[in-house]
């Protein structure tokens, strides 16, 4: 099975993240880049599917040159090869454009199954899987906390507020995963050492057949109009329990409509 995992380099959530004042895009220089956390689960799930059913796992990312670090991590975990789409023309692309660009690359690599994290910790739009499935004309199985494959059929449990839905489709398909699906492995030392010897293809937009007029900040369908610092957290309300603590807590919860 030809499994492609789409991964993204995001600023480390443990550092202070900010947008650039001039073009209101993410300031990637201000924070260390790491593999988007949910994408680790996607890589893990792809590896488990490969281990159970055979095939090959390709890591695909779109991002600046330094996103190679992120790809290395996925290769260290055990993915077989990598494709890195990188081009100045792609800077500032929004989700709609990204889905177009990824679609073009997938046209080159082919796929039976595309696996993604259900959202990234930077933009958090959570729409890429849906857009990609639509563009590719294949079923989307979103928010999976369990994936089973049987021949050409794929079944997932889709995480919901009330439990889960059972969703079934026929391959090829796009799956997005949530963190309950598995526990990502630590890369093995052998995997880390082997990573740099694995096939690694770097593509520009011309290589991938991407139309420059359909990508990049200037052509984006959405725009960040303004942004502001998050307000400092307000001090919590402290209730001293003098016999009425339970009532005060209940009143607080009721005032917030929790109970």
């Amino acid at each position, binding site marked *: 099975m030809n499994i492609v995992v789409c991964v993204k380099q995001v600023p480390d959530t443990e550092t202070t993240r900010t947008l650039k004042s001039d073009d209101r895009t993410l300031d990637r220089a201000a924070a260390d880049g790491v593999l988007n956390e949910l994408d680790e689960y996607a890589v893990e799930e792809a590896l488990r599917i490969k281990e159970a059913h055979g095939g090959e796992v390709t890591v695909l990312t779109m991002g600046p040159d330094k996103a190679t670090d992120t790809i*290395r*991590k996925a290769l*260290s975990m055990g993915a077989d090869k990598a494709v890195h789409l990188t081009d100045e023309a792609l800077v500032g692309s929004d989700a709609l454009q990204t889905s177009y660009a990824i679609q073009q690359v997938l046209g080159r690599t082919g796929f039976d199954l595309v696996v993604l994290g259900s959202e990234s910790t930077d933009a958090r739009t959570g729409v890429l899987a849906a857009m990609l499935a639509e563009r590719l004309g294949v079923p989307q199985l979103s928010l999976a906390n369990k994936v089973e494959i049987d021949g050409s059929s794929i079944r997932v449990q889709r995480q919901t507020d009330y439990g889960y839905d059972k969703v079934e489709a026929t391959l090829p398909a796009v799956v997005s995963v949530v963190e309950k699906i598995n526990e990502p492995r*630590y*890369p*093995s*030392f*052998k995997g*880390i*050492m082997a*990573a*740099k010897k694995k096939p690694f293809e770097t593509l520009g937009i011309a290589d991938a057949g991407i139309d420059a007029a359909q990508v990049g900040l200037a052509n984006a369908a959405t725009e960040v109009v303004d942004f502001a610092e998050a307000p400092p957290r307000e001090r919590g309300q402290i209730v001293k329990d003098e016999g009425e603590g339970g009532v005060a807590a209940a009143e607080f919860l009721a005032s917030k409509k929790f109970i």
Partner: protein
Amino acid sequence: MTQPDDFLALDDELDEAEQGIRDVVRDFAQDRLAPQISDWYERGTVPREIFTDFGKLGVFGMHLDGYGCAGTSAVAYGVACRELEAVDSGLRSVVSVQGSLAMFAIHRWGTEEQRQEWLPRMAAGQAIGCFGLTEAAAGSDPASMRTTARRDGADWVLSGTKMWITNGTLADVAIVWARTDDGIRGFVVPTDAPGFSANAIPRKLSLRASDTAELVLDEVRLPAASAFPDVRGLRGPLSCLNEARYGILWGTVGAARTCYLEALSYALTRTQFGRPLAGFQLNQRRLTEMVIAVGNAGLVGLRLGRLKDAGRVEPAQISYGKLANARAALDVARSARAMLGAAGITLDHPVMRHLTNLETVVTYEGTEEMHTLSIAAAITGLKAFR
């Protein structure tokens, strides 16, 4: 801009795989070990599961080739030791004894059968190894050991007592060095052999998150194939100690780094006389001396690692690193403890724990005195002992 935790940007010298290994071990150490270490230390235990976790991680014998070992560079192994000892010297000791002493001994001196039998399970953490050289009356002078191995038909019979043996009560296999008619020889001793027992050494005030034991060999009968075939004399055990000391000289960089970073963070937040402790000149001097000590120790580790990877490191150079880095780390820990004042003495901060650990690290695997004399012997050509 300089980074407080790597002032010389030394890690830029690591290759891609070494950096990758550093990240994995650091994540593991911070996620799985750091949150629990105070508790383990206070209770004086190290959970058995740590061995399987370390095995899955791949740190046991990681710089050895084949038999389930990853075959990394010596530098990568050093960096792993550094990141583990940044949490606790006892946890790094577990890895040193398993990988550098027990596994290395079998890998270097064992028969093919011994390697096949033990190394894959030890690499995976399914079998635990220990290393019996030191005795109660034979520390710096191991040639004076009293443990003997005598022939009885084709068998060997071992008798004696080994002391201060890390991983001793947990071990499935002990590498035991004993006197024979043919000089000191090494034996692979399964710990379930009749006559073998291990007693935990109680009341330790240092390396509490590490198992330390006395091994008793009471007429332990072993088949002929238990002996290492080709090595005689102290050359065998000393080759293993050289490996372990290499891990220590890197590990102490981690312990020193943690103490220094803790002192830095404390000094930046604690105020006295209306300003942070870090703003006082005497403390600035302390912090500067710490950052220099950590950086220099790191440089020594990297240099010796590169020499080791090139197959050119000399035992006296390992002595240099072990002596210099363990001593430097102890100085940093003491200075950090002083900066934390009373707060420094509890397990709420890592410094006193590191400090008491380092009091052991500075003497085990060769005391300051022995390494001083080894280095001096190398530069003068004159041996002041033996």
